[in-house]
């Protein structure tokens, strides 16, 4: 488990943190939605991950550089030959040490199409969620949370695993900058 760049938690601390997270998830699974206990138990990891992200954040915003990079990537011309070469160069990579070459021409069309499709998918989810939220009763207009709620409320282990998974994803998002 890494925090930031080049820093690695000692194994015993990582193990204690893992056990604490499991125990915390189990305790949280006893709470029910719309209660102050749920707010506290969910608020703690939110605050912790936010603090971790603040600690690990770069010193300045790189929005301009990122947008410029995105523009360059999307405007780069592609050819079939370079595309297949780019695929092999990028698909097997993962993690910051082996980051895909996003600026390569071969990657540009894949990135453009994928960003477009996944953005449309996210937009569809948001639109459907907002549309369903604006109508009642909930049984007739299910939202994501109302669909998941019976699963979480019906089984404490499922609830605990879901909460642990959510915390784990938050850890990944906030720790590896």
């Amino acid at each position, binding site marked *: 488990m890494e925090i930031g760049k080049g820093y690695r938690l000692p194994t015993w601390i990582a193990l204690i943190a893992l056990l604490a997270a499991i125990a915390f998830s189990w305790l*949280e699974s006893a*709470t029910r*939605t*719309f209660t102050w206990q*749920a*707010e506290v*138990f*969910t608020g703690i*990891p*939110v605050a912790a*991950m*936010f603090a971790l*992200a603040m600690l690990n*954040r*770069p010193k300045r*915003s*790189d*929005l301009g*550089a*990122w947008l410029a*990079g995105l523009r360059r990537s999307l405007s780069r011309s592609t050819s079939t030959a370079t*595309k297949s070469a780019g*695929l092999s160069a*990028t698909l097997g990579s*993962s993690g910051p040490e082996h*980051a*895909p070459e*996003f600026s390569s021409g071969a990657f540009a*069309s*894949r*990135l453009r*199409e*994928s*960003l477009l*499709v*996944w953005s449309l*998918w996210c937009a*569809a*989810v948001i639109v*459907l969620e907002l549309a*369903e939220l604006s109508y009642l009763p909930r*049984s*007739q*207009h*299910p939202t*994501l*949370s109302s*669909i*998941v709620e019976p699963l*979480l409320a019906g089984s404490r282990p499922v609830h605990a695993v*879901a*909460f642990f998974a*959510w915390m784990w*994803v*938050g850890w990944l*998002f*906030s720790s590896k*900058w």
Partner: protein
Amino acid sequence: MAVLVEMVTTASIGIVAWCVLGLVAVGLEFLARFTKNGFLTTGQVLHYVMRSTVGRWVVLLGWMWVGWHFFVR
């Protein structure tokens, strides 16, 4: 009877819509991982988006919203 049919239909439309979106996501991920169409996986797209500080904060805020929505209200 007509009211009951209408209620079932309304709920069914919502559930079907969610199922379709879920299947589309699974299908896109399957296409990206197991075919050679050049489509990127969610992980690769997220990896790109999270290369920027702003993108990373947006993703983190999305994570916070999902947790709050599912576990609190």
